[in-house]
């Protein structure tokens, strides 16, 4: 269900923990699975659980508890904008409104061409860089003026 490369990455994570504590690798394993497949359908979560010799329900609990896992399909690029107080004081809400307007979608929606999903995020721990947004969970973009948002969306559109 997952590529050899992903499985090797998961094995490296398992090696970080005591031999009888494979379940500790579940957060990393779900992340690796999501990066390869784009989101986490139930069968994929079950596969990860079996690989780590843990009950599927326990893996599902983890996948549904932490909000960076996607349990439903998302667009090719997921953009998460922080609108918490420190960001909001420095244009975070404005940045989110601008992205909405540019993409023609609201939070938790995907563009009809399947390219972009927009999410509202909670504190990302980068309040000094506001406005801040995350692209596909792992790439943080700082000081997002409208010009920079234009550029970012144009670049992502080509990918």
């Amino acid at each position, binding site marked *: 269900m997952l590529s050899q490369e992903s499985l090797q990455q998961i094995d490296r994570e398992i090696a*970080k923990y005591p031999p009888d504590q494979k379940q500790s690798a579940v957060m990393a394993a779900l992340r690796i699975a999501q990066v390869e497949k784009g989101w986490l359908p139930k069968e994929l979560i079950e596969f990860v659980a079996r690989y780590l010799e843990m009950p599927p329900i326990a893996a599902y609990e983890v996948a549904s508890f932490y909000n960076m896992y996607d349990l439903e399909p998302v667009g090719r690029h997921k953009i998460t904008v922080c609108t918490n107080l420190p960001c909001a004081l420095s244009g975070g809400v404005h940045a989110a409104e601008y992205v909405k307007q540019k993409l023609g979608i609201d939070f938790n929606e995907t563009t009809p061409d399947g390219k972009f999903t927009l999410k509202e995020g909670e504190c990302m*721990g980068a309040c000094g860089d506001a406005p801040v947004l995350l692209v596909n969970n792992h790439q*943080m973009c700082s000081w997002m003026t409208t010009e920079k948002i234009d550029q970012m969306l144009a670049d992502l559109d080509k990918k």
Partner: protein
Amino acid sequence: MILAGCDGDRTWRLQDYVARGGYSALKKILAEKTPQDAIIAELKTSVLRGRGGAGFPTGLKWSFMPRAFPGDKYLACNSDEGEPGTFKDRDILRYNPHSVIEGMIIAAYAMGAARGYNYIHGEIFEVYSRFEEALAEARAAGLLGQNILGSGFSFELFAHHGYGAYICGEETALLESIEGKKGQPRFKPPFPASYGLYGKPTTINNTETFASVPFIMNMGGEAFLNLGKPNNGGMKLFSISGHVNRPGNYEIPLGTPFSELLEMAGGMRGGRKLKAVIPGGSSSPVVPGNIMMDCTMDYDSISKAGSMLGSGAVIVMDETTCMVKALERLSYFYFEESCGQCTPCREGTGWLYRVVHRIENGLGRADDLELLNSVTTNIMGRTICALGDAASMPVQSFIKHFGAEFEYHIENKKCLVPPEVQYAGSQIYVSPSC
């Protein structure tokens, strides 16, 4: 101190850290076989207090570990920084990760732990990747693993990432998360020093706390204490955000006047007037600007002003800020991040958000402030962890200090601060009907 000399793009590399004097404290301890007690005593002299928010004395915490306990013992670093306003650990890990690694090795030596994990906030994944690289450098140099630098002491350290849950910054939730479970806090006691990761004795410290250790070992506890003021030892990183000209991290001695810190951050944006400050991360009670201007930045002074130094996250708000809207954003955060385990918090945070939201949207009722206060008193002290208190303190303090603004909202169904003024300050668009 921690971030001194860290303004290039290679300062995170092992070679650069060593050139800045890095790993000398560890080398000295291993070469001289410094007794464990002597290290802990030095920390106690320094009066280093936990930099994650609670301000608990680090030396005392380390002394709780049962060193004679024959089985496994663990160390965990809390880099799950997600409290609105806090962004210092990200910079420590980005620019000086080896100071954290060295601090953790010294801690492991002092407490007899053989394995450690650094739990890194999921949203800063690039920092997690860099920390993994720094760990690889340390391993290759014989600073981690079996028989470190030929001393006979062994310690393994790994990075573990979160994936979007504020609650995992609570230390027992963090342990649950490393065990591969939902991050729900545990009942205490037992405390982690007796029953921690995988049920073994564990000590958890914040990133900045660990990063301070090598400096204390090098300069001595007394010298570190003297950098700050009595009972408030050393230097501290302050993360300033909000309405200032130069938001960012500033490392200053504890006891520095707030007015100087504000000056360092370039002063108020647009030269506007200071209205209020949240001095220690979103959970700490808000302090009116005029009171804040008389405070010094240390645990005791901020506590006297009715708030907490917390993690040192200073959120600055100017006169264009609508306090109802500001509280609404914070209350939404706690509602969203409550783990759902304890009923008073799970239900109460929802009540807090919904009531503040309706006041903000012109639907407030006459007895809403009373209702809000009653909900907070029914949450506080009735939950397993501090998230319930953290959600309640902003509500109580906003109403205490800015109650008139809330009453105006309820009576007039609009904001005291005109929408165009709010927009000028924060680019928050608010419809005229509020």
